[in-house]
């Protein structure tokens, strides 16, 4: 059984015990434990079930590469599925549960799949469930869906907060092992501004576990010393619990800082996503040990040799009293030696190499450990935990020579450098035959903004496997990074370690070499997704020869560990099956992130109140307090209507319209865009922007204008006021201000840069209120002594007035509702005050604030178009019968050439008309008018569509506008508008102006 040892555990504070529960079972760990080490200390060998066959799964690794040990962590608002126990620090009160089983971890119905596994090879679902068709939808797929997925879906809202952080460094070192620390020192001493990030809470990486001496110091002392030297450097920043998640173009690095995962009740954000711009990136990301492919290598208790060593040395945990070590390289001998020295049993070291290992092997033998060279494991015995292994000759087909009882198997297939960050942005790899690994190809590094290389691998991430070469390599990397960012590295040599003599690794992709199908279909490559040697071989046989095909066909490496343990073994098996070299096969693409990062950390602060900005007018608070039913318009929030207590939205809108037409209404029009265009060439510029002739507009006057894009389509409209000889004030639609201002600046800066014109977007400077209705002049006159009579301020005129109390205001006599109305503009800081003044002064007239819907209905009653309703990006002014607003005199305006194209001048384009239902009902939004027959694709022919439709309380009937084939020439024709339910509404083509056709009301 796995237990906590009396001695060992360099990362533990055994003085402090921590309580936690797994599947409801109370357990105890100590401070410094990971959840993994704590589970093992409690003899919890089995921690989950695999994805496809629901096989028992135990902990395999000790770091982020762990494929099996995923749990549901925490509860309610802090629940998180698929949490990796090897990267979860234990804290007091932690609760977690294993995943992907029913009813329990011990007894799982899904395990039946394991019995059926021979019928469920790679890609079986592409070949099955095809007939009969309905069964796929109703039986097969629902079943597959239910059995899919790993962790439970969270239910509750996330209780935690998250944030981003923007940082800038000359050199970012990813990884705080000896290589990272040395690279950082080298770069730091050269004066570069350096950030070192380490994903665990500890510095030093694997080195302290493997031991050794640097410059006469034990390696852990050397680590301590390096860290304190780095702390002392002003220009160096050190962060732990921060993972290098991704590298993007131009030196952009994502640092995933897990601020509070280990102290969930602490204040502050749970995660902080660092968005770092780096001159150079040093990837000191270490290497990952590879499993060996033998039958039963997925049984709980079979672990990476390095992991077994880590748990013993770092956490004082023995994964079993008897551990068999199986390897194809020298490194795994360290595990045997470590265990033996801790007083644990190592019945045998199985070394696949006929000639066996080097000095380390000698050391093992000297400790009395039995070593079997040229041997392999035929199969592991056991179900939910390891019971023993069958030994065979590696060269053979798996005939058992002997069975050895054991509780754990420590395996090592060699080491693979962690090249993910190197590869994210295009760094290429080369195959190193001697060391049996892919490592970064120094000649093909990712290139940055200036075409420079910006990623430098260091240490074992660059393929160096012994301490001495790691330090040399890392020191050089640090100096190179400093150099590349304009600093002068010191001449000093790298710290010295004793070079180790190692016998070369021997590539072993299958154990034993000639394993039978029976063994191969029990030899796992991808533990989580249940991909076995036989699956890859099947894929190859079926022609899935590209490594991407094989991956996608078998799902190799697509699990939550992204194939950190399985990819290399898998593509080696594939290469072998295709009898081609591993480099010819190549790797799949490495995609960010290195290990999964929380969605919430990506969203950062953008949640709830700060999800997106909401633009508010100066009168917003009044609206809020007075029943505003809000409508988002662009980024703005506008009242759709103001509901009285107990009043429906529909009734509120009708009331607002009636009151406005009868007496007096107020509209908060502050959101309308307001742009100043000024300069000697302003008139010329305005004539290009608008389809109308604007240069002839007289100061003091207003003109309604249309704007098209170069493609001819109507993009915005609004009232232009000429402030003085060389100054215009352009009003735009609510959504349009920023776009239109950008549009103006674009033409001025990139096409007509010699024209003398300046623009300024003053939208937010002014609060604007529409004072609308027969009583509007009366109420306005109450507020000013200036003359605003029909003679002094005629329709489509504007003037400056002073409100009582001295507040200056601009008054535009324009009307969008068809009533006598004025738009008042005052500085935004006085907007609320103006509103209150008008409410007070208007009281005697029953003043009624109205919202966007009443505005829409009233403009529709008048037949005024609305950008976004009558227009949709495919409509030109000519379609809307607005030729009157298109100057014939002008040679050019934006969109004019486009409007000359054949389809734009096509007489059969649909044109704007009014629509009146025969039964007085209201046409549905977006309804189409049908025509006879169908088109070549069997679709019903149409001859028009509704663009705006409302119930008009003024006329007591439905009114609508629409675009209709030859509409203006077909007054009186009746069209069929089918509803979605198939029933048809008949509507007559009429003049679009429904109310006050002669415009008398606005002109009094």
């Amino acid at each position, binding site marked *: 059984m796995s237990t906590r040892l009396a001695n060992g555990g360099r990362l533990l504070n055994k003085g402090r015990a921590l309580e936690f529960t797994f599947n409801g079972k109370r357990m105890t760990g100590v401070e410094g434990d990971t959840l993994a080490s704590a589970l093992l200390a409690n003899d919890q060998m089995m921690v989950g079930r695999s994805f496809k066959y629901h096989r028992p799964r135990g902990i395999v690794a000790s770091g982020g590469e762990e494929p099996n040990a995923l749990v549901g962590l925490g509860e309610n608002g802090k629940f998180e599925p698929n949490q990796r126990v090897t990267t979860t620090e234990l804290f007091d009160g932690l609760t977690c549960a294993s995943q992907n089983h029913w009813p329990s971890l011990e007894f799982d119905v899904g395990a039946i799949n394991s019995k059926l596994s021979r019928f469920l090879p790679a890609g079986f679902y592409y070949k099955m469930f095809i007939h009969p068709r309905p069964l796929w939808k109703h039986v097969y797929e629902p079943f597959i869906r239910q059995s899919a997925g790993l962790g439970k879906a969270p239910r509750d809202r996330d209780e935690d*907060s998250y944030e981003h952080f*923007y940082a800038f460094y000359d050199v970012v070192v990813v990884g705080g092992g000896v290589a990272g620390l040395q690279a950082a020192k080298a770069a730091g001493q050269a004066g570069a501004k350096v950030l070192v990030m380490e994903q665990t809470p500890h510095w030093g990486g694997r080195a302290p576990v493997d031991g050794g001496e640097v410059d006469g110091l034990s390696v852990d002392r050397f680590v301590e010393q390096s860290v304190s030297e780095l702390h002392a450097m002003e220009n160096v920043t050190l962060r732990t619990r921060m993972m290098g998640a991704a590298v993007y173009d131009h030196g952009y690095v994502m640092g995933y800082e897990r601020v509070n995962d280990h102290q969930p009740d602490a204040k502050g954000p749970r995660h902080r996503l660092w*968005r770092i711009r780096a001159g150079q990136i040093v990837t000191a990301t270490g290497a990952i040990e590879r499993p060996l492919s033998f039958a039963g290598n997925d049984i709980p208790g079979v672990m990476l040799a390095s992991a077994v060593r880590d748990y013993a040395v770092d956490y004082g945990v023995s994964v079993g009293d008897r551990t068999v070590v199986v390897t194809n390289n020298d490194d795994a001998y360290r595990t045997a030696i470590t265990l033996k020295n801790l007083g644990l049993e190592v019945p045998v070291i199985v070394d696949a190499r006929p000639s066996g290992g080097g000095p380390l092997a000698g050391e093992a033998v000297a400790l009395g450990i039995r070593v079997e060279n040229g041997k392999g494991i035929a199969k592991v015995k056991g179900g939910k935990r390891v019971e023993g292994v069958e030994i065979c000759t590696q060269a053979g087909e798996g005939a058992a020579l002997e069975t050895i009882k054991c509780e754990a198997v420590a395996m090592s297939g060699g080491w693979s450098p962690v090249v993910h960050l190197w590869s994210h942005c295009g760094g290429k790899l080369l195959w190193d035959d001697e060391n049996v690994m892919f490592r970064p190809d120094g000649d093909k590094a990712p290139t940055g903004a200036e075409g420079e290389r910006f990623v430098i691998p260091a240490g074992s991430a660059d393929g160096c496997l012994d301490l001495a070469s790691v330090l040399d390599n890392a020191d050089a990397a640090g100096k190179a990074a400093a150099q590349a960012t304009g600093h002068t590295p010191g001449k000093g040599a790298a710290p010295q370690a004793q070079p180790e003599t190692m016998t070369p690794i021997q590539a072993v992709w299958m154990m034993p070499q000639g394993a039978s199908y029976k063994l191969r279909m029990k030899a796992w490559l991808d533990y989580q997704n249940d991909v076995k040697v036989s699956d890859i071989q099947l894929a190859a046989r079926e022609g899935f020869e590209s490594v991407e095909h094989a991956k996608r066909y078998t799902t190799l490496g697509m699990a939550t560990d992204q194939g950190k343990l399985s990819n290399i073994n898998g593509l080696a098996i594939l290469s072998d099956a295709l009898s081609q070299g591993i480099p010819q096969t190549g790797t799949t693409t490495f995609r960010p992130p290195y290990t999964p990062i929380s969605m919430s950390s990506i969203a950062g602060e953008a949640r709830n109140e*700060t999800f997106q*900005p909401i*633009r508010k007018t100066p009168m917003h608070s009044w609206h809020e307090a007075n029943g505003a039913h809000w409508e988002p318009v662009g980024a703005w929030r506008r009242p759709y209507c103001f509901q009285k207590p107990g009043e429906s939205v529909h009734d509120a809108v009708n009331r607002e319209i009636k009151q406005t037409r009868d007496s007096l209404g107020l509209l908060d029009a502050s959101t309308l865009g307001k742009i100043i265009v000024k300069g000697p060439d302003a008139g010329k510029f305005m004539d290009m922007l608008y389809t109308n002739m604007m240069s002839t507009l007289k100061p003091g006057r207003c003109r309604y204008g249309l704007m098209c894009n170069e493609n001819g389509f109507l993009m915005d409209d609004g009232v232009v006021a000429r402030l003085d000889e060389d100054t215009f004030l352009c009003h735009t639609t609510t959504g349009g201000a920023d776009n239109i201002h950008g549009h103006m600046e674009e033409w001025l800066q990139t096409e007509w840069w010699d024209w003398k014109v300046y623009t300024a977007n003053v939208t*937010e400077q002014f609060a604007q209120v529409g004072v609308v209705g027969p009583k509007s002049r009366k109420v306005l006159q109450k507020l000013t002594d200036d003359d605003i009579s029909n003679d002094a301020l005629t329709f489509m005129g504007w003037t400056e007035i002073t409100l009582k109390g001295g507040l200056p205001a601009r008054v535009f006599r324009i009307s969008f509702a068809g009533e006598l109305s004025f738009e008042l503009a005052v500085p935004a800081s006085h907007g609320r005050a103006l509103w209150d003044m008008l409410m007070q002064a208007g009281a005697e007239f029953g003043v009624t604030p109205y919202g966007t819907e009443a505005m829409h209905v009233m403009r529709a009653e008048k037949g005024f178009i609305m950008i976004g309703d009558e227009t949709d990006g495919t409509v030109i002014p000519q379609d809307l019968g607005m030729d009157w607003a298109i100057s014939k005199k002008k040679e050019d305006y934006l969109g004019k050439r486009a409007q000359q194209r054949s389809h734009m001048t096509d007489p059969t384009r649909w044109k704007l008309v009014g629509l009146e239902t025969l039964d007085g009902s209201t046409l549905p939004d977006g309804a189409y008018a049908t025509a006879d027959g169908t088109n070549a694709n069997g679709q019903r022919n149409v001859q028009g569509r509704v663009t705006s439709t409302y119930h008009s309380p003024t006329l007591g009937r439905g009114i609508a506008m629409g675009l209709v084939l030859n509409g203006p020439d077909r007054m009186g024709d009746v069209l069929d508008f089918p509803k979605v339910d198939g029933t048809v509404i008949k509507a007559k083509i009429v003049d679009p102006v429904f109310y006050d056709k002669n415009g008398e009301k606005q002109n009094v």
Partner: protein
Amino acid sequence: MSEAVSALKGASFDGFVTVKDTGLHGMITLRGDLASDAVKAAVQDATGAPVPGQREVSGADGNWVAWMSPDELLLIVAYDAAPQIEADLRKALSGSHHLVANVSDARAVFRLSGSATGLREAIAKLCPVDMTPGAFGPGQFRRTRMAQIPAALWMPTDDSLHVICFRSVADYAFNLLKGAAAPGSEVGLFS
């Protein structure tokens, strides 16, 4: 005359730095040839501060001139003084091609104060700008993005920083800054 009010009426928040709506300022947009003597003189007369260099701000305590773009300045003065200054500028620049607009009511200004390192941290959570001392400091004026809105930054002193954004998003900006300055979320970087 009615009393003018800023978007957040002086609201303030105490986190690891203090965030405060500084109330109303007079602000004038001036577009023209910034190299011309006319503009230089007019700006000097209006604010007592010279035309700042590229991405710089000149002047002091409540009287600033900020460089917005190669042909645009933002004059920040006392709220009540703005109308007169606007008129003076118009007069002084008449004859030359220019644009002067009083935009005193179009924006909101926040002041971050307290820990000199803290206010740099708070901003570094929201803006893609290198806030390291030496990379950014007094005298500079940086227009950038604050989370999802355009904003500009300047530091009147080493231990105070001003953020300026449009008035309509003052609420959003204030909420952002409150979150960034929340106790317990210190990063401890610039210390």
